[in-house]
């Protein structure tokens, strides 16, 4: 299969293929946040079907949705949403903890992910000891660590200055080049242009 079929938001059908780099744009209130929540399995549609890797989320329990999020989705947020009391490495290890992976492997895989985003020397730092760009890199490492089917970024540059934002987008481009499926939700058209494919949401409908 290898497809994401989203049929949502007033009769919308959207397919995201494996290896895509898609930007979902639209003004606030357009429905793009709802779309992101649906793709990320944080929410289920009142009507319609969402299928990730061939698994339909309709009628799933909270625990089953949590499992899908853990295994298939890597979230990156505007406000980073790192856990403040633990260091970068432990933050990146957290999704693996919920997968039931042993501590030794958790640490190894988290290190690899942090090295991938260029933060090998910041592993023991707590979030408040990191710059905004570094925090977002930790968040990306955390999203990557469980090898999800999709990287889902909600305004990932929204809290960063232009330069840092562009660096983060470059990182997404690299990750996409490595074969990862990336979806970026943003209202910033310049950022959206970094993606291979742009989808506009307006009033709950898709515009080509």
């Amino acid at each position: 299969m290898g497809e994401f079929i989203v049929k949502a938001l007033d009769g919308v059908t959207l397919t995201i293929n494996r290896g895509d780099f898609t930007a979902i744009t639209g003004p606030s209130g357009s429905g793009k946040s709802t779309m992101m929540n649906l793709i990320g399995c944080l929410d289920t549609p009142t009507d319609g079907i969402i299928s990730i890797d061939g698994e339909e989320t309709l009628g799933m329990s909270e625990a089953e949705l949590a499992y899908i999020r853990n295994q298939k989705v890597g979230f990156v947020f505007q406000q980073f949403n790192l856990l403040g009391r633990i260091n970068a490495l432990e933050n990146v290890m957290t999704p693996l903890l919920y997968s039931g992976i042993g501590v030794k492997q958790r640490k190894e895989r988290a290190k690899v992910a942090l090295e991938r985003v260029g933060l090998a020397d910041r592993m023991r730092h707590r979030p408040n000891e990191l710059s905004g760009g570094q925090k977002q890199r930790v968040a990306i490492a955390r999203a990557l660590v469980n090898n999800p089917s999709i990287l889902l970024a909600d305004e990932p540059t929204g809290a960063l200055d232009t330069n840092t934002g562009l660096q983060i987008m470059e990182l997404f481009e690299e990750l996409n080049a490595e074969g990862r499926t990336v979806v970026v939700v943003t209202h910033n058209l310049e950022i959206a242009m970094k993606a291979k494919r742009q989808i506009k949401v307006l009033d709950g409908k898709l515009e080509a």
Partner: protein
Amino acid sequence: MIWENIKLALKSMASSKMRTSLSLLGIVIGVASVIAILTLGQSATKSITQAIVEGGLEMVTIFPIRTEKASKEFTEDFGDRLMSNVDNIKTVLPVNSNNAIIRFGQNSTNATVSGVLSSYAEILDYESSEGSFFSLADNMAARQVVVLGSEVAKELFPDGNALGQFISIFRNQAKSYQVIGIMKEKDASFNLQFNSSVYIPYNTYAQRFIKPTIVGSYVVRVAEGADALEVSDAITEYLDATIGTDAYRLFSPASLADMAKQITGTFSSFLAAIAAISLLVGGIGIMNIMLVSVAERTREIGVRKALGASPWTIMGQFITEAIVLTITGGIIGIGLGTLLSYAVANIVGWSLHVSYASFLFAAGFSTLVGVFFGWYPAMKASKLDPIEALNYE
């Protein structure tokens, strides 16, 4: 996972130390008072029973009451009858006692004069320091000989040299007795004041001192290895059946110790139950702080859910935090309670008897408090909607 949860809980506790310690206070005070009460209760029981046991657990004393029926039953052969009807009795010693003034030269003192058999000293492990206790022959011949308790000896013969001297015992008229022995000091067994007594042969007492209408008391020595409590119960049963409940009084250190144990046991259980109420109050404090903690960390809960934490996982995290909180309080409380017991026992002069069972009880109870009062906040956390939680400011 459990270990991760414990680490998280400790980190969260460490992040707001003041709040953590204040919310722990209730549990700490509750556990400390339960521990102190149970420990001190046990120590009190131990020291009270020890005082009674020192008097000789293996003795049971029967005091006949001067009634017509009793005077028929409590005769010279009562001991033989008792022994053939109740098991595990080594000996029954009849004793007659009365107070009298005793004089040697210018010295005089008030003492208990006891007429006893020659085997009395040996059976009660009562040893002489000078001379010896009187013999069977002394008793048979009703000789006017006397053995002095240590205090009496000191009063009458401050310079020693008592053996062979003649002392006067006054009762209506003075009679003189020759001192043939002085006894070592011996702790009083609640009804036997050894040191302030003098002993004369049983027959001498009856024939030459006071003719008793009824035997004053019987000292029953329980057979070695037998349970004194059972024997004293058996004696009570036998006497009640044959002579009647109002014809005698029975003193048994074993049953006294048992009674003391029951009274202090009931009393300290009662106090501990009251102290346990403060544990309940402490538990409510824990619930309060956990609710605050869940509200504060709404966003964190949202993030964890987005990363794949199931409702049960979140529940586990917060329940663990509540349990770690209460167990920490429990451990501090156990330490504090033990310290407090130690201080009180030191002041009052009891030997401290630490009750490890109460440690287990306190630890178990505080875990239970954690689970019980942590349940609702943890459930609240687990049911949070991930989208709302993520957008919580």
